[in-house]
């Protein structure tokens, strides 16, 4: 057979190969012992720590967020409340303003009407006074005329009355104009 040594027992242990194997294993063991496993273990511990810390941090942040949320909620509610109060106040105010304005307007209107009434009343009074005075004078004049002129006939009588009435009329117009 090519490239093959003489056959030995397969259960052979060659000293040189055994030593080479031990050296190779020693190299790998040294590397693992000094370098790989301690670092990996340390790193795993660190990771466990950081995960635990992370969980704690997350819990803290959650609590903080909850608190903040509560605060915001309170603030919001307060804002809602104050808004509603403002709104009510404003509507009350506006109602009051409207009522006041209405009252004022009514009062004014009443005042104007009253003034007008008073004026009218005064005018009427005045007119009545004047009329009374004039009617008295007129009645006295008429009576004097009726009594002064002998009433011969009915024609003359009616003439007198007509004249009087005409005078009266013109007089009243004159009087009205004077007024």
């Amino acid at each position, binding site marked *: 057979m090519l490239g093959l*040594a003489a056959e030995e027992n397969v259960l*052979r242990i*060659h000293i040189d190969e055994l030593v080479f194997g*031990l050296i190779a294993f020693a190299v790998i063991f040294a590397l693992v012992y000094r370098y790989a496993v301690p670092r990996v273990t340390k790193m795993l511990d660190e990771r466990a720590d950081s995960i635990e810390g992370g969980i704690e941090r997350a819990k803290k942040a959650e609590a903080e967020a909850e608190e903040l949320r509560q605060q915001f909620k309170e603030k919001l509610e307060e804002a809602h409340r104050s808004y509603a109060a403002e709104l009510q106040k404003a509507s009350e105010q506006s109602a009051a303003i409207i009522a006041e304005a209405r009252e004022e307007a009514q009062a004014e209107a009443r005042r104007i009407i009253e003034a007008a009434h008073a004026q009218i009343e005064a005018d009427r009074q005045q007119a009545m006074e004047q009329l009374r005075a004039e009617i008295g004078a007129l009645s006295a004049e008429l009576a004097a005329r009726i009594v002064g002129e002998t009433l011969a006939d009915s024609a003359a009588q009616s003439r007198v009355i007509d004249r009087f009435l005409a005078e009266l009329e013109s007089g009243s117009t004159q009087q009205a104009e004077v007024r």
Partner: protein
Amino acid sequence: MSADTLNLAAEGGGGLFTPGGPGFEAPSVGIFFPSPWSWGDYSEALPYTSGITKYVILLLVATSLVVFFLWWTSRKLSVVPDRRQSILELVVLFVRDQISRPMIGVKGDKYLPLLVSLFLFIFAMNVMGIIPFLQLPVTSNLSYPAGLALVIYITFITVGIRSQGFTHYFKGAVVPSGAPGWILPLLVPIEILSNFIIRPATHAIRLFATMFAGHLLLATFAAGGWYMFNPAAGPLYGTISVLFSGSALLAFIIFTAFELVIMFLQAFVFTLLAALYIGQAQEAH
């Protein structure tokens, strides 16, 4: 296959259906005895040596593979692992949670470096068996498993003496508790034999024999497939021979994948038994 196996297989290549051709010669155990390179051949001068053979070169390859793996995966360790680091963590945690903790307990974490390096080293040496052009598991040479078993042997005896004291440890290991006095002359030699001689021997031979058998199986498939590959034998016989050798190739591929599983399992079992022995030595019986 390795060059040696190819040479071996080539001797019978194309032999099927060739009248008067060479008969099929199955690969012999000779494939496990590569001759030393001429520049490193001191095997004649020293007894019980082999010289610088393919095994030594493959040992070097496997070792540098493991060293490179360790360097590459633990170059920059961070709390948030990247892909490289995850591989190393996977290996370390696998050894810790599947081997060290169940066998020795939490206090066995100090043996974790030993077990991790054992596992990585054996697996790398085994895997040499299915890497193209190398294709010779280093552990199919008994010298290497024997060295590792020796390390574990010394380790567990040391651990036993240090944790239990010399007399207590050997008494616990050799004298079974609860056995009647008259049977002890029979039991003690058996216990000595099983605990201190057969145990390291089987520890080494188990790994060696599995790799040996697996490699021989793959070599047989390759050699047989090559022997049967003879398309020049005429249309009918040629087709048959190609079909035969195709199925041998398929089986070769399947068994290569199977071998990978076995290689992993044997590295696991070797490490597991090492942890078991250490754990037994540490605890009082």
